[in-house]
């Protein structure tokens, strides 16, 4: 099936819901809430509603799918934490969130990131915590239909710089920014 994105697109999702949990009991706490946890660090599970990132043995981030109709993260956020060994990470406040979508996404990333992010060595469901355009970033590979989609999370204070760097890297491939509503329209086209 053909790609829906002829050129790479960048969508800023910083206002989308996300949350983090850390601690020795974080894994058990999330499992108790019915969250499917990846087995090892630097792996992610994702579906139509939620992506679950395991960043270390005891640190987890949950990203609500920006196109999800419901708010599955609300249930997780509203649940009381155990008395000890779990605490919240406010990654919605600390980190900006972008999607880079399109078949050429790995080529775009090769211009700003030293880690090989081609699908053959960085398949969907894997995470790279590394430097992107000299900014510390978390790169998560997932798919959007048949297209490659990289979640990019970086320090929110560097968001504007990061966006400009990505636009510069995308220019060679005819890339552009896109609003979430435009993305929704394209994704929903048969």
């Amino acid at each position, binding site marked *: 099936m053909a790609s829906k994105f002829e050129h790479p697109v960048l969508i800023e999702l910083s206002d989308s819901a996300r949350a983090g949990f850390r601690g020795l009991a974080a894994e058990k706490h999330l499992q108790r809430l019915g969250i499917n946890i990846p087995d090892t*660090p*630097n792996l992610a599970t994702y579906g139509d509603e939620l992506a679950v990132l395991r960043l*270390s043995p005891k640190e987890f981030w949950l990203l609500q799918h920006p196109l999800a109709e419901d708010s599955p993260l609300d249930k997780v956020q509203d649940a009381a934490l155990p008395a000890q060994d779990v605490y919240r990470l406010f990654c919605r406040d600390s980190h900006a969130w972008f999607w880079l979508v399109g078949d050429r996404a790995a080529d775009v990333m090769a211009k700003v990131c*030293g*880690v090989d992010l081609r699908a053959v060595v960085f398949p969907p469901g894997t995470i790279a*915590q*590394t*430097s992107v355009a000299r900014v*510390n970033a*978390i790169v998560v590979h997932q798919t959007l239909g048949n297209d490659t989609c990289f979640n990019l999370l970086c320090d929110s204070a560097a968001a504007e710089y990061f966006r400009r760097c990505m636009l510069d890297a995308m220019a060679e491939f005819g890339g552009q920014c896109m609003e979430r509503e435009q993305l929704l329209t394209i994704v929903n086209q048969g």
Partner: protein
Amino acid sequence: MKIMHCPLNGPRNISEFVYGGDVRQMPQPDECTDKAWAEYVFYADNRAGVVTEWWLHTPSGYWFIAERHTVTDDIVRTYDASDMFQQRIDFMVAGSDKEEQ
């Protein structure tokens, strides 16, 4: 480009790492002499040869231990801190029975 192997994230550019000092036995702060504490805080061996050091992978905030040769700057081995520290170290507050987490 110099590459360092992070035990959590794999091989990465050395620019992603920050040096954190020698791994050393810390004297009990409430029991040791001021001289012993000052030596622990301010003095380093600066030894030529393979040393054991703390390093931080900054993008993931992950501290680990590396064995590095200070003459050749070869990184001999890197491993998770849990290989060396099996339990959390708690600090006693002087003049108090409460343990600080």
